[in-house]
């Protein structure tokens, strides 16, 4: 199976005053295409830092990140933006929908940035909203929706531009456990059906059960990579 993400010897140091925080301390791993990976660890272990670096939001201190044959750490900011626009979808912990736009418009936003004509992107957005069961709420503004609904809009927004990879930083962090299960189930289903790669950060071991592989990270080091064989097989059979 093709490697889509390949990380080698990744270091991230933060200098705070005199002391130096090693947020990432020599991380190396590969993620295969179509995989659902979870990054699990305690608070402050460096999960978000890793994910942000994979998404090109932060520059590593040392090491290399190759995504789809492209060295992310060498790209300039506007190239990174283009890279994200074309290859990456993002799901945020606190949803981050645009408050002045309704659900469809929010979902269509990445397509707007790609310069797609309005009619076409609205059609696509409606289709994705149908996928996340929000057709009824498509004209709702973010403040007229529940947290779970908002996050489903967030997932739809991450999916609408057909990205190869989806990053999610604690997508269920602001949701109760029942809604979390809903959203996780939805993400797992969509990723499996559409064959996308999903990298998700969570500190909840239970939610990590949905993933094919789980990276355990402690103090900036990956200590264990857990394969959930049966789920993965099940996913590929379907």
């Amino acid at each position, binding site marked *: 199976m093709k490697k889509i993400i390949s990380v080698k010897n990744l270091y991230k140091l933060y200098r705070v005053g005199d002391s130096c925080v090693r947020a990432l301390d020599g991380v190396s791993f590969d993620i295969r295409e179509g995989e659902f990976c979870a990054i699990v660890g305690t608070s402050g272990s460096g999960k978000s830092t890793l994910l942000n670096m994979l998404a090109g939001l932060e520059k590593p201190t040392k090491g290399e990140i190759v995504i789809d044959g492209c060295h992310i750490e060498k790209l300039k900011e506007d190239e990174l933006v283009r890279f994200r626009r074309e290859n990456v979808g993002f799901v945020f912990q606190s949803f981050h929908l645009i408050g002045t736009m309704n659900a469809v418009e929010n979902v269509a936003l*990445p397509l707007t940035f790609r*310069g797609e004509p309005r009619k076409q992107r609205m059609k696509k957005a409606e289709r994705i909203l149908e996928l996340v069961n929000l057709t009824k709420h498509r004209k709702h503004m973010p403040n007229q929706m529940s947290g779970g609904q908002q996050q489903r809009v967030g997932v739809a927004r991450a999916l609408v531009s057909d990205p190869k990879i989806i990053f999610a930083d604690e997508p269920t962090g602001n949701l109760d456990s029942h809604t979390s299960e809903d959203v996780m189930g939805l993400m797992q289903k969509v990723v499996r059906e559409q064959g996308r790669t999903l990298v998700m950060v969570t500190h909840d071991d239970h939610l990590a059960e949905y993933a094919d592989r789980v990276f355990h990270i402690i103090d900036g080091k990956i200590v264990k990579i857990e394969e959930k064989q049966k789920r993965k097989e099940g996913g590929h059979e379907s």
Partner: protein
Amino acid sequence: MRWSDLLRMSISSLRRRKLRTFLTVLGVVIGTASIVVMISLGLGLQQSMYEEVEQNGGTTSLTVTGKTGDGMMMSYSYGTDGNMEEESQKYITDEVVEELKGLKHVKSANPVLNVSALALKGRYIGYLDLYGMTPEELEARNIELEPGGRLPDPDSAELELVFGNAVLTNFYEESTGRGYWETGEMPDIDLKTDQLFLILDQDAYYSAQEPVSSGPTEGGDGSGTEVSSPKAPKKYVVHACGVVAGGMEAYNANSYYVFCDIDKLRSFLQKEFRGRAIPGQPATRSGKPYSQFVYSSASVQADDMENVEELANTIRSMGYNVSTNIEYINSMKKQFAMVQGVLGGIGAVSLFVAAIGIANTMMMSIYERTKEIGVMKVIGCSLRNIREMFLLEAGFIGFMGGVAGNILSFIMSAVINILVSGESMGVGGSLSYIPLWLVLTSMGFAVLVGMAAGYFPALRAMKLSPLAAIRNE
């Protein structure tokens, strides 16, 4: 991103904060309006100056007058003979006019003959400033006549006159010596229909009058003068073929003049003063008339305003006096440039203040939307698009301010013109004048100012770290 989407997003974010947008736009409105109104005042002044110049012969006309070697020279040059004297003096004769016509850049050259005359009508007597001009010249003066009037016909047997609309103010009652300026009443004469008696030989008229008025007091002397006085001058019956439009009150460049055909006037003069020197005509020292008929001046039209200066110098080097409007216009232009600079500067200050307002608003808007901007960057909005979005927003504020400011300017300009035209008479045209180019440039300027003010905030938005934006809660 498409332009339509950029525009939509910019407008929607402006609409989100209606009051704040309104206040910012208001600043631009005031700034634009003050610039436009200030400059329009300067332009109005300039416009009315040009109109005045146009009435006085326009920018391309030159008035050429002869040079009479000054009096001192003449009195001391007793050793010279008549020939020399004639050469040292330059007169405008038919030959000279022909010569002027032959010069480069000359469109037309026409002689002008200016004499003063008396007019009698009933109990009134009036002075006429009589201008004899060629038909082409009269045509070129663009005199606006009252309906029914026409220019003098050169082939008519009579001396046809065109009266200036204010000529009657120079008439007074012969018995009392009181005229319009004393009594405030217009003489009871209708120039359009009434016939007048024209007296070309004023000296003769007065010397013929003298004994009548001074007779009773100084009997002996009076009778003596009466004997020696020349016979009373001929009175020519004349009537108007036209009156300058505008009525008694309105002033224009032709108000106090009386125009007639130059050849007619010349032949009348020559008839009247047969064998004597015509007043205003130069005479040789012996008192004999000059060999050729001499005109008061020649009116020359240059082909272009740019060539007026050159032409004037050429004619001066030929030995004639030349007066043009160009020096006047040039000095006025300089003054107006200064006035406009000052007025425009005052306006520019208020637009500058408005620009600070725009920058402030944009800054606020960016702080408010830090998270939004960060999210957009994370999900793939290019840096250029973000910058454009904010520039467009700022430019749009400028544009709205520019449009509203221009509307306000037109209203203010109209109000100023109404107020001023109510107060002052005499000043033709309007005080505030807004040409199309001013509308367009001020609008463009407002947009530019908006964009300039929004430039640094837009750069700032562009540089916002997406990470910082999405991390904080």
